[in-house]
């Protein structure tokens, strides 16, 4: 017969609604309203997982998002599986399956448990110390370390869920719906402020809602009854939006906060379908009120990690909120009054409380008296020195504390128990406050870090601001809220609050044991298995900065980010090193507060929406003609068009040959196009390009090279003079946006006196580039009226014509070295222009070619591609393009830099051609070039930037940058590859038609 562990009817648990679920393959049931943790505890399952390093059995320790131990894999082997989920946050639903992590073969018998036995050999920094040498062994170590690292298993299947992002703008954001948050949100909204109240739990009310402190009364009612009425009233308030299951992950500058709203994780599978799983809320709030509460601290003593050892407040929450008791024989261990509330609550339900161990000398508060009156034995000034019970707590050993709290005296008292509720006081949850840039100060009396300097329009209220008592919370809130929101009054200014005052305090960060510390395991970070011993070792080894100790011992580096134990780590360091905690400071609190799924972060930007694609107006034609696309920036550009059975190499060879032998056509719509107008347009071009522009006649085109101010090539392209004060500049595909940005920068900031206007027209025009010896005939068929004679329409000139009444701009320019025309037409006619060209070119076997053939063709001509043959370190002189630098112009962007000592060095890398001794061997782009083979270390002279097999020259050609290459014409160099060395000679980079005869063919 199962023990009766569900002891109380709770309004938050629907006992008419049974929910069955599986844990480690075994079926259990709980009720609607249970978390996985409360349902497991109700089934007397305390052993939930194994710890990270020592594989020690661990159980549920808390009842909230701070849980370090009870991490589970949910729905393993399904497409919705998720690792490292806190059992305390999983709301159970029909069909839920969860399993323990970090154990093999199972949580009851875990081979890794051997680490616990050999733990004296696994001190802090074990990995750093052990795997350092010999260095060559790292690859073997790495395999072993990776195998033992990590807790859960990441999902292997495609996530079936949809995630969303949403922007929210509000006047007031209240984070945390405990008593303080609820009162603040209500009063903000009632004063006509658009208010959003969020809480990570599914029920409002925080701790107050279930935690009926015996002697706390608001308006002569129990505090939870009073708060329930307040919560009832929230529904009717205008301007107030309430979101539950919503956890604020990050608090950035300017009151920008990110929150995760959980929408379907608590639903059973059939109800999850077709809904958004989680939503990332991007909240911009005029004012932020943090009411994030406080987290109860554990106590740090020997073997403080066994299943059954829990926070005192968690024991109380499981009893009060879920109606579940965590043991038959419970002991509380505390340094403050709050454990007495938990003890009384159990006692009143008929659950045996064996004893209370209190490290204080006494306490005269009413609650303590009430507990003592029940006959529960209180051990004043005692501490727990050890615990036993491998998979479940069985026994604790208690001894008297010395006056200074540094040691224990007398005999061990053994107490048999199966649950130990511990309370080391409370830590204000200042995580979000510090993320926002807030500065903390240390309150020596209460041993807490509190908000002191606010970086933005925000306040912290309630226990996250150090107000732990209800009267304090309400009094301070009433005053602070009025100041902060600039309102006259609140509706709780005059309510009566009675409390039970706690006067006695004692804090010991690391409790002593009768054993030497070396023989104890006082866990500070449960998840990462960091003990006080490890922290002390780090200090002995010379670590002083708190950030270094953290990284060396991994304290606070688990998925819980040390929510429970970080304060103790700081305290132990301060005590050991003899510094004040306020001077020591804290480690940095970083977002997210609780882990986020990748799905939430990326939202809808998955699959085909992962990135933006830009497609040209001819895109459909390319697809119909079996193009392979290449990504160029955001553009999808045609790469090559394989005919049946053709490889990429074969297609590119065919396309390149056709373009030179008859006719080729390229979609050049992606080139950046900037319309430049204004009376100073010519002067502007003079300043931004290296060559001269004033004398360019209307209707003519010119190639230009643009530098950065440091003299390095930035972009290139052809610019056409359309009119007296009107130019059309083309840029590289990838550089278009940056070039426009740079030109705007100069116009607005350096040369505001110039009358020039820039407009991006890249998307407004489609461009078909027709090249080859038959291009003229094709153009003549499409536009018969246009005089294509060299006299009327020479190379590097432009005509505006009409094609079926649609205006076109035709440029006779060439990037292939062939006779060629670029036809620009309004984008919406792009496809029909392209189809016209294809139709007209049929008799000449017009061949569409992609970017790969274009690259090959221009390489045959030695034309550079900015970004392929240049890398931001090449001047025009390095490119052997001295001809493009105007000698007459006084200034242009980058001119002065061309005369710096560094840019004038003779041994800079310079662009040259390379030919291989064996014409069939094609070099690898990026391959390193050397002049000596038997040198050590060998000097790298440069590398190959472009390399192709030229079908028109029937040999391998390459462009390369080589130190001092300009003066190496004909020199033999070597390219050592993994399996062979390739012999090459330096050549003129113009491999084909050096005299440019074909341009006018």
């Amino acid at each position, binding site marked *: 017969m199962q023990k009766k562990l569900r002891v109380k009817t709770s309004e938050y648990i629907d006992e008419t609604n049974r929910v069955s679920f599986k844990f480690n393959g075994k079926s259990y049931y709980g009720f609607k309203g249970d978390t996985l943790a409360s349902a497991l505890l109700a089934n007397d399952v305390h052993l939930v997982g194994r710890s990270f390093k020592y594989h020690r059995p661990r159980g549920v320790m808390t009842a909230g998002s701070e849980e370090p131990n009870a991490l589970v894999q949910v729905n393993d082997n399904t497409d919705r599986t998720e690792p490292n989920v806190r059992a305390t946050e999983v709301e159970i639903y029909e069909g839920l399956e969860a399993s323990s992590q970090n154990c093999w073969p199972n949580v009851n018998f875990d081979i890794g448990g051997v680490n616990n036995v050999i733990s004296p050999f696994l001190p802090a920094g074990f990995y750093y110390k052990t795997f350092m040498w010999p260095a060559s062994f790292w690859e073997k170590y790495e395999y072993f370390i990776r195998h033992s690292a990590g807790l859960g298993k990441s999902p292997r299947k495609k996530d079936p869920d949809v995630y969303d992002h949403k922007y929210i703008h509000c006047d007031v954001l209240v984070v945390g719906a405990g008593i303080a948050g609820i009162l603040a949100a209500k009063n903000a909204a009632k004063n006509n402020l658009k208010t959003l109240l969020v809480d990570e739990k599914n029920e409002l009310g925080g701790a107050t809602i279930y935690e009926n402190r015996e002697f706390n009364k608001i308006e002569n009612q129990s505090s939870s009854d009073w708060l329930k009425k307040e919560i009832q009233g929230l529904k009717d308030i205008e301007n107030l939006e309430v979101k539950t299951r919503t956890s604020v992950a990050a608090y950035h*500058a300017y009151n920008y906060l990110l929150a995760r709203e959980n929408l379907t994780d608590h639903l059973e599978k059939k109800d999850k379908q077709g809904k958004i799983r989680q939503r990332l809320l991007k909240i911009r709030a005029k004012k932020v009120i943090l009411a994030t509460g406080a987290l109860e601290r554990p106590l740090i003593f020997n073997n403080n990690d066994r299943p059954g050892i829990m926070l005192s407040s968690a024991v109380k929450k499981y009893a009060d909120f879920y109606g579940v008791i965590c043991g038959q024989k419970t002991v509380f261990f505390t340094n403050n009054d709050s454990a007495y509330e938990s003890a009384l609550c159990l006692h009143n339900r008929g659950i045996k409380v064996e004893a209370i161990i209190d490290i204080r000398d006494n306490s005269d508060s009413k609650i303590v008296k009430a507990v003592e009156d029940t006959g529960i034995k209180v051990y004043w000034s005692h501490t727990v020195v050890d615990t036993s019970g491998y998979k479940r707590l069985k026994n604790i050993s208690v001894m008297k504390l010395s006056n200074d709290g540094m040691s224990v005296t007398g005999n061990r008292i053994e107490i048999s128990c199966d649950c130990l509720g511990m309370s080391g006081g409370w830590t204000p949850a200042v995580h979000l406050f510090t993320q926002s840039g807030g500065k903390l100060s240390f309150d020596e009396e209460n041993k807490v870090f509190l908000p002191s300097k606010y970086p933005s329009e925000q306040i912290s209220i309630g226990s996250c601001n150090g107000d732990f008592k209800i009267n304090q919370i309400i009094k301070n809130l009433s005053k602070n809220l009025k100041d902060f929101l600039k309102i006259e009054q609140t509706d709780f200014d005059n309510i009566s609050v009675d409390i039970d005052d706690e006067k006695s305090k004692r804090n010991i960060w690391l409790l002593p044991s009768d054993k030497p510390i070396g023989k104890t395991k006082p866990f500070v970070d449960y998840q990462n298995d960091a003990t006080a011993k490890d922290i002390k070792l780090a200090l002995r080894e010379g670590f002083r900065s708190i950030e270094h100790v953290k990284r060396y011992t991994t304290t606070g580096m688990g998925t819980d980010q040390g929510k429970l134990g970080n304060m103790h780590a700081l305290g132990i360091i301060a005590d050991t090193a003899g510094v004040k905690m306020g001077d020591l400071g804290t480690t940095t609190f970083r977002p997210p507060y609780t882990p986020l799924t990748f799905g939430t972060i990326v939202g809808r930007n998955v699959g085909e929406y992962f990135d933006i694609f830009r497609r040209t107006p001819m895109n459909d034609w390319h697809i119909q003609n079996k193009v392979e696309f290449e990504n160029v920036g955001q553009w999808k550009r045609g790469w090559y068009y394989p005919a049946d059975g053709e490889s990429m190499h074969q297609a590119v060879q065919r396309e390149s040959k056709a373009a030179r032998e008859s006719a080729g056509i390229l979609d050049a719509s992606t080139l950046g196009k900037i319309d430049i107008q204004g009376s100073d347009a010519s002067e502007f071009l003079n300043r931004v390009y290296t060559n001269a522009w004033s004398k360019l006649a209307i209707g003519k085109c010119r190639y230009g090279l643009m530098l950065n*101010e*440091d003299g390095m090539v930035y972009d290139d392209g052809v610019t056409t003079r359309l009119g007296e004060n009107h130019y059309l500049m083309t840029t590289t595909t990838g550089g278009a946006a940056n070039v426009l940005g740079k030109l*705007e*920068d100069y116009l*607005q900031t350096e040369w*505001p006196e110039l009358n020039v206007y820039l407009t991006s027209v890249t998307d407004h025009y489609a461009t078909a580039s027709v090249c080859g010896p038959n291009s003229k005939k094709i153009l003549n068929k499409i536009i018969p009226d246009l005089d294509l004679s060299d006299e009327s329409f020479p190379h590097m000139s432009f005509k505006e014509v009409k094609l079926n009444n649609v205006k076109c701009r035709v440029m006779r320019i060439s990037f292939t070295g062939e006779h060629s025309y670029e036809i620009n037409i309004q984008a919406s006619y792009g496809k029909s222009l392209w189809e016209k060209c294809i139709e007209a070119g049929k008799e000449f076997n017009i061949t569409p070619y992609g970017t790969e053939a274009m690259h090959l063709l221009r390489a045959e001509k030695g034309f550079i591609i900015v970004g392929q043959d240049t890398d931001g370190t090449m001047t025009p002189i390095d490119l052997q393009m001295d001809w493009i630098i105007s000698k007459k112009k006084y200034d242009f962007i980058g*001119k*002065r830099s061309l005369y710096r*000592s560094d840019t004038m060095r003779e041994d800079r890398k310079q662009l040259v051609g390379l030919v291989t001794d064996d014409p069939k061997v094609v070099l690898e782009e990026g391959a390193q070039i050397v002049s000596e083979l038997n040198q050590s270390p060998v000097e790298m002279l440069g590398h190959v930037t472009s390399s192709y097999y030229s079908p028109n020259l029937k040999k391998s050609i390459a462009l390369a940058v080589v130190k001092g290459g300009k003066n190496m014409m004909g020199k033999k160099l070597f390219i050592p590859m993994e399996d062979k060395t390739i012999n090459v000679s330096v050549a003129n980079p113009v491999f084909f038609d050096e005299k440019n005869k074909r341009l006018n063919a």
Partner: protein
Amino acid sequence: MFLINCPYCGERDQHEFKAGGEAHIERPKQPTELSDDEWAEYLFMRKNIKGVQFERWNHAHGCRKWFNMVRDTSNDEIKLIYKMGEKPPSE
């Protein structure tokens, strides 16, 4: 994410803007007259202050206008925004 008050468009989210480095570094009118060191000073040397810094910003995904910003880099407080060509505040 800051909120930036573009002098032409009003308050917008930071992701619409691009930072453009230190402000009030004027391009020399006669670069050819400068020594290598003087030119390098203009070209490369930038302050990176923890505290109040004068910066250029561009409303890149908005009106594309450049403007100046005085920002405290230690806490990201934007103290002042003013148009290009306007004099920096003395204090």
